[in-house]
């Protein structure tokens, strides 16, 4: 059985996972300097949406499968494009993907309790890495870059709020599948802590780079780590600090594969994993432009999924 602290930690990881990849860039482009205000409003809206889901109690089985599959595909693509861009830029994509998929299959052969325990173990180095990163970046903060506080139009501002809400809440919905001991307090606490860390990271990105430069970058959340230079000695540690994002992706992918395994027959599960792997390989190898389309329009798909999972009743209800 998952412990209460396990839910908080899982929610902490799930809240941040969809921000790894292109999401920071998307939100910065939309809300410019008002990113902190829009993210804060987005967080409050996210708590309300989580409460609605908590009251709804369960999610439809098929929606669960679609949601888990979508999130698994997207975070796998994010993971591979991040890894192949900065860490293993000469390694073929399938060599990066296969261990990731094998890890997920192995993780799904256990159960959700094991995933929760792994997340409880990983949380300590994760928190240390995050605090270390933020401390290392504090001296570079230039508050002038945050001004003017509101320099976007209302439409983009609203889209940015909704984007933050959708990106942070959507993976959290998956936790409703393991709700035996889950109370709203735990899921909301994990969500709030995770969101605060995202907002803090956004604050550092905008105050160090300024919105003009950070909106140019594909992965500002990674590139900012390159600037860490502590005691004239500790630098070039961005790849170690990146482990925090990778652990976020791994925990979420384990949650997704566990849900798929619980909702599908064994053969169907393996078939689906095979299809997912093949799809990712085809997209990344042959249809690169699809990743650009995904980056640009995935937020709308998330929005549709969020609404559908809220509206469509579960069979158990």
């Amino acid at each position, binding site marked *: 059985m998952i412990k209460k602290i396990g839910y908080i930690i899982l929610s902490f990881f799930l809240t941040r996972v969809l921000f790894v990849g292109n999401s920071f860039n998307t939100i910065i482009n939309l809300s410019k300097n008002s990113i902190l205000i829009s993210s804060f409003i987005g967080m409050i809206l996210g708590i309300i949406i989580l409460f609605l889901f908590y009251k709804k109690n369960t999610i439809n089985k098929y929606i669960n499968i679609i949601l888990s599959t979508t999130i698994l595909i997207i975070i796998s693509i994010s993971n591979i494009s991040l890894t192949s*861009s*900065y860490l*293993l*830029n*000469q*390694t*073929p994509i399938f*060599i990066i993907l*296969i*261990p990731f998929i*094998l*890890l997920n299959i*192995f993780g799904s052969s256990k159960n959700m309790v094991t995933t929760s325990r792994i997340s409880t173990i990983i949380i300590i180095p994760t928190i240390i890495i995050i605090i270390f990163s933020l401390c290392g970046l504090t001296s570079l903060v230039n508050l*002038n870059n945050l*001004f*003017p506080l509101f*320099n976007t139009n209302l439409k983009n501002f609203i889209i940015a709020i909704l984007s933050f809400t959708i990106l942070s809440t959507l993976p959290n919905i998956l936790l409703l599948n393991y709700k035996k001991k889950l109370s709203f307090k735990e899921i909301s606490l994990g969500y709030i802590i995770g969101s605060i860390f995202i907002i803090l990271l956004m604050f550092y990105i905008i105050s160090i*780079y*300024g919105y*003009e*430069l950070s909106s*140019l970058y594909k992965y500002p959340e990674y*590139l900012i780590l*390159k*600037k860490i*230079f502590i005691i004239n000695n500790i*630098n*070039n540690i961005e790849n170690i600090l990146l482990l925090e994002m990778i652990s976020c992706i791994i925990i979420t992918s384990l949650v997704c594969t566990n849900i798929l395994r619980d909702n599908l027959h064994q053969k169907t599960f393996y078939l689906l994993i095979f299809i997912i792997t093949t799809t990712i390989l085809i997209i990344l190898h042959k249809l690169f432009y699809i990743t650009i389309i995904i980056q640009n329009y995935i937020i709308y798909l998330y929005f549709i999924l969020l609404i559908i999972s809220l509206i469509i009743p579960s069979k158990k209800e």
Partner: protein
Amino acid sequence: MKKILLLFSLLLLLTSCYDYHELNNLNIVNSIAIDYQENEYTVYLEIINSSKKDESNEYKTNIISGKSSNIATAFKNAINKSDKEIYLKQSRLLLLSEELCNKGINNIISYLLNDNTLSNNYILVTTNNINNFYQKQNNTKTTLNILNNNNEMDDIEKITSILINKHKDIALPYIEINNEKINTSKIAYFKEDKINNFIEKKLYDFLIKNNNNTTFSFDNNTITIYKKKIKTDIQKDIITININGYGYINQVNKNINLKDNDSYKILEKELNKQINDEITTFLNITLNNKSDLYGLQDLYYKKYQKENDNITYKINIDIKIDKNGNIYEGYYD
């Protein structure tokens, strides 16, 4: 058995040894230089020679270069001349020739920013003669030491963030090489992405880089500002630059007796006037040449979210002298 097979396959796959390179098989780039002559870019890569032939501690470097009308191809041509895999992440200096800066550097910056094989904490410098710079060994090391001495240098990201901000202009350290002598006392200031003119960098370091240990001299008195704070206040069309800080006395003339309290007040008054004059001259010269290095327009825009061509500035200096040296009186005029 399945688990053992799975673990074994993970062991093989997770070693991250695919396509690795030994340090001996790498050419580590110490600095990069880009020149532009006759519609062609020339990229120079200064490579650290790893084979140690003599006992001296100083490292030796080799230069390879590539030419093309396109910057990316010029880079590729230079890299192709290397006998080993090129490693660019160790590079700490990027030299841009004066001709290139006259043409405009946006093209170069966007290429370099996009390239993830480069680090993003190297500093940008302009020079009048790239060939002469590389003729003498260890010039890169010397230059970096001179530039980094007490100065916080702008890396490519900082430069880019100013370049894409239309309300502010950049300035780069300028290395003037004449008869193998290196002069680093000037900066090249830009209008948008092109060189506008050159000016002594003392005031730039003092006012814009906010570096300490700037020395001011007047009437044979010399005072070093060792600590200061710069704040700006914007009221309607007037931007007030307030500088508060502390200085110590390096030297005083014959008429100053440091046992007398009033001498300090006289020195402070003269010092503040001197700093005010120097800053005003610096800002006037650059602003008259249409380069806003301090970012007055940017400050105004950040407060009022609109542009204003009629911004004026006011400088308030309040530097206190709180340290003196070993002697109380100067003994010469």
